Structures are given as structure tokens and as C-alpha cells.
């Protein structure tokens, strides 16, 4: 008798792992049946996990950190069992802002974080209104890091608006925001609707940002070790499958269903192939590692990634940085990753923390089988984050 698990997700291309695990036999192989629940908002997903209606969920990577730090509604100890996707967000601007940027000499390059950011900052006299999906999101962190490094005093000099991903195009069409940072396909949808233009893939800000994690309540994880093991193995299998180029088209068809993202497969395929159309009727632009499910140990929950998130949140809202980093590290479960995925033939990194931002190129590092290729994980401005400096 298969165990039924209730899994929450928000309609985005990066929810692919839970959909693939359900439909292509990965959950079944572990004796699990996944019932997927599409959530109207990240708050609703958070409530479902906190109150027990959902066993686990596709989560913004900062969400378990924030919840475990007691921030936002329904503080609950939530862990990230593994990373489900790396990168995949995109920055877009309204047509009006794009026009101003061009008039100011912006060459419309899609891979110039510095130049594009400087033009964007100059494009408006008042505070730039930028839409992100949730206060605790990689989107918010990347926007603050990017514009902060270019001299903007974040968050004070920004007007950050919270807009659920499927509503981003509407918000920019209604002139409620000047720009957005959102996960696909919702940036491409703004392009399709002719209301905005994509200006930068977020992988150009940080080349290895943990975007979504598999999150669940800490207590539930402790009480159900076998189920957790099966679920992690199923999701890992799905991520590995998604990492294979030949599976791309099946994945975009599956995700395009109305139960899931409910957007044409050709639009979903842009994110999966890394070939984004930045303006209506323009040609696609290829971005390396735009969205990564598997390569470079993508699914490994690095405790240093959690520390980076916590360090930023702590600085912004005035928490003790060391305490916050310690709590965050404990909720990225690299221990369970090693334990539960053992025997699947994968190569485990030797360490559970790394210096974030140190790898400008793919680099071989020590692993359980000798060496593993990691990175690149550099920040555009050369930031080096040492997760151990204060602990």
C-alpha cells in the first residue's frame, strides 16, 4: 500500500521536480503516491506546511530560514531537505522604463548586470518600484544584492512590492511596478503580453543561487524518517531526470497542463532550454545555467547557502547575525541528504559548507568518490561570503 503525501507547489517552471516525481514513476518506486496541491500564494503554502495540511512543499529557499527564525506569520521550525532548483529567476522592466533606458544609451545587453543595473537605477526619479513574489525570497535577496552593490541604499531606496508570480504581468501592465524579479514562466508571460521586457537573468547576479528547496516541518521529518528518505530519493531522481537535455520537451509538456503551470509548453521550454525571448517578437538569447536541476551538485543543501540568506535577513532587520546563521544552517539538512541519498551512486561533496562566490569557473573539489565538479558560484561584483566568519 503506497503512502500518500500531500505536496504543495506554486505554479512555476521550477516546481518541475515534484510534478516529474509524481508522474514519471520516481515516487512510485519509493512506495509513495504524491497528491499535488497548487497554492494561490506563498502565504497559503506556508500555512499549509505549518498547520499540517501539506506534508512537504516546493518552497522559496529563504522561507524555511525565515520561518525557523520566527519571522512572518505562523513561525514554525521548517527544514530544507534538499535544493530542487538553482537559478531560474529573471529581471524584467516595464516598456516605459525600457524606453528610458534605451534613450539613456542602454545597449539592451542581456548579460551585463552592472551596466543594466546602473541604467535601471537612473531610469526613474522617484524610488524604483520593484515587484518580488514574497518578502522572504531569493528574488528579494538578489535584487538587494545587485542594486546594493551598484550603490543603491537597499532596501530604503527601493519601493519593494509583493506580487504573486502569476500576477506579475498584470501588475506591470497596470503600472503598479516599474520592474520585477520573478521565476519563469511569469517573466516570459509579461513579454508575451507585450507589457514588459526582460533585461537580466538572475544567474548573472549570482551564478549559483539556491532557488527552491523541498521544505517540510522539522517535527514531521523527525517523526517520519522512512517516508522522508523515500521522498528525497524520488525528488532527487526527478531532478536528475530533469537535468538530462533529452527530457526537456516531455517536461515542458507535462508542466504546461492546466493542473500545473497552465501556460503553453513553448513558453515553458524557454526556461528549460535557457533560451529566453526578452522582447515580444525578438529572437531567443541563450543563457548558460539559466535554470539548473542537477549539474554541479545542484540539489545539495549547502549550509553556507542558508548562512548567506540568514546573514542578509539578519542585517536588514536587526537580528543577531551569528544566531541567525546558526539557526539557518541547522535547517539546511545536508546531514539527511548524505544519509538518505547514499547508495544512489552519487558523488557527495566532502564538506557541507563552502565559501560562497569563490568559484569563477567549474572547479573540481574533494568528494566521496575522489572529486566532484562544482560551480561556477561567483557573484557579479566579486563578493566572497565566508559562512564561518562569525560562528
Amino acid at each position, binding site marked *: 500500500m503506497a503512502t500518500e503525501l500531500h505536496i504543495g507547489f506554486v505554479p512555476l517552471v521550477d516546481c518541475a521536480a515534484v510534478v516529474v516525481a509524481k508522474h514519471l514513476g520516481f515516487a512510485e518506486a519509493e512506495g509513495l503516491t504524491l497528491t499535488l496541491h497548487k497554492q494561490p500564494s506563498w502565504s497559503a503554502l506556508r500555512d499549509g506546511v505549518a498547520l499540517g495540511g501539506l506534508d512537504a512543499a516546493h518552497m522559496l529557499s529563504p522561507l524555511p530560514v525565515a520561518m525557523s527564525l520566527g519571522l512572518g506569520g505562523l513561525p514554525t521550525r521548517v527544514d530544507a531537505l534538499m535544493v530542487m532548483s538553482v537559478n531560474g529567476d529573471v529581471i524584467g522592466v516595464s516598456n516605459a522604463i525600457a524606453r528610458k533606458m534605451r534613450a539613456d544609451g542602454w545597449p539592451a545587453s542581456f548579460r551585463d548586470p552592472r551596466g543594466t543595473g546602473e541604467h535601471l537605477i537612473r531610469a526613474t526619479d522617484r524610488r524604483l518600484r520593484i515587484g518580488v513574489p514574497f518578502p522572504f525570497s531569493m528574488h528579494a535577496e538578489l535584487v538587494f544584492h545587485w542594486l546594493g552593490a551598484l550603490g543603491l541604499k537597499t532596501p530604503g531606496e527601493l519601493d519593494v512590492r509583493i506580487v504573486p508570480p502569476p*500576477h506579475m504581468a498584470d501588475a506591470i501592465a497596470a503600472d503598479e511596478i516599474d520592474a520585477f524579479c520573478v521565476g519563469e514562466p511569469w517573466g516570459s508571460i509579461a513579454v508575451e503580453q507585450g507589457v514588459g521586457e526582460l533585461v537580466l537573468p538572475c544567474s548573472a547576479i549570482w551564478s549559483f543561487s539556491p532557488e527552491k528547496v523541498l521544505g517540510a516541518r522539522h517535527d514531521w521529518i523527525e517523526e517520519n524518517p522512512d517516508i522522508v528518505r523515500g521522498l528525497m530519493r524520488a525528488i532527487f531522481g526527478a531532478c536528475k531526470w530533469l537535468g538530462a537535455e533529452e527530457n526537456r520537451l516531455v517536461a515542458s509538456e507535462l508542466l504546461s497542463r492546466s493542473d500545473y503551470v497552465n501556460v503553453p509548453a513553448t513558453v515553458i521550454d524557454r526556461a528549460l532550454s535557457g533560451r529566453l525571448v526578452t522582447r515580444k517578437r525578438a529572437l531567443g538569447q541563450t543563457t548558460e545555467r539559466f535554470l539548473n536541476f542537477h549539474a554541479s551538485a545542484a540539489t545539495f543543501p549547502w549550509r553556507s547557502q542558508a548562512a548567506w540568506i540568514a546573514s542578509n535577513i539578519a542585517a536588514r532587520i536587526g537580528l543577531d547575525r551569528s544566531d541567525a546563521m546558526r539557526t539557518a544552517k541547522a535547517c539546511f539538512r545536508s546531514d539527511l541528504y548524505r544519509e538518505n541519498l547514499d547508495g544512489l551512486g552519487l558523488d557527495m561533496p566532502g564538506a557541507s559548507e563552502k565559501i560562497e562566490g569563490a568559484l569563477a569557473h567549474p572547479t573540481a573539489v574533494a568528494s566521496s568518490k575522489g572529486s566532484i565538479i562544482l560551480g561556477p558560484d561567483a557573484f557579479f561584483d566579486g563578493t566572497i561570503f565566508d559562512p564561518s566568519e562569525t560562528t
Partner: protein
Amino acid sequence: MDMLVAHPKPPRRSGMASRLKILVVEPDESRARMIIDGLAETGDPDITVLGGPTGLARRMTEIEPDVVLIAMSDPSRDTLEALSVASGFNDRPVAMFVDRSDDSTTRAAIEAGVSAYVVDGLAKDRIRPVLDAAITRFNMFKKLRNELAAAKVALAERKTIERAKGLLMTAKGISEDDAYAMLRKTAMDQGRKVSEVAEALVTASDLLR
């Protein structure tokens, strides 16, 4: 900066005297009306209705509501959520109301699909009647919606059965009563509903036409 937290503030009001200010975020007009009626019975609250997320932040500042009611399924909740962790909303942080000492109310609210965001420091005994009224109205609305949907289905089934009877009467030259008896007997023999047999007959005849 319109996000991120949250200095615990002492309650600004002692509670009793002032009229409770309630903001209802609800795009569905009939549900909004129903909620207002329900809330009016809890005393004399000052109620404002907002149809969508547009201007939510601004209205929050203008109105300074004590309670915000919003459907669990409303995507605007994320916007509200951000306000709830924001500083600077007239020093009045709001947070989603979850009474962990009273799980049944919380569960009833979730089942009814309503969430309440409550200003810091508002006494529980002032929240409860509002939340109870909202839960009742949300449930009432859901029941009405379900009944309406059921009535629509029944009407559609009736139409299909009428068409199937007509087809049988023409094809076999039998009376209306006999046609219905035939549908019913077939349904009983096959362990199906009369409407399903009728549906199958209508579909088949459309295909053969």
C-alpha cells in the same frame, strides 16, 4: 522601504471604547455583501471593502484597520503578508491571527477559507466575534455556491433526459412514459444513473447523425 519587520509595539489602544475598524479584501461582490451583513451583527464596526490588491498598502495606512479579513485563497494575501512584516505602517504591525490555544477556531477558519490579520495588541475577546461571524458567512456563501452548482447540474441532467426521451419516442414510436421507463430500466440493469444512460444515448445519436 515597505517590507521587513517588526518591532514589537505596545498596544496603542486600551480596547473597549473605540469602534472596531475592519477592512475586508474581497473581489466577489456578493460574498463581500454577505460578510458585511454578518459583521454588522457583531456590534457597530466600521467596515471598508477593498476589491483587490491595488492600493492595499495605501489603504492600510489611511484606514489603520484593527482587523483585515481576506480569503485564504486570495493571492493578495502575499501583499498583506509583506505589510504584516513591514515597519512604518503607523507603528501598527498586523499579523495573521492564529490562536494556538484554541485550535478549533483556527481550524474552522481554515476550513471555511478565511484568514484574519489583526493589529498588534488587539484583545482576543474583540477578535473572536468578528472571526466567528466571518467563518459563518464564508461557510454560508460556500453552501450557497455549492447549492447553485448542484442546481445547475440538475437542470442540465433534466435537459439531457428530455432529449433522450424524445429520441426514444421518435425511434421506437413509444409514449413519453414508456421512454422514461426504458431509460430507468436500462439504468437499473447497468447500475448507472438515469442521467448517465440518457447522456450516452444523446452522445451516440449525435455521433450517428
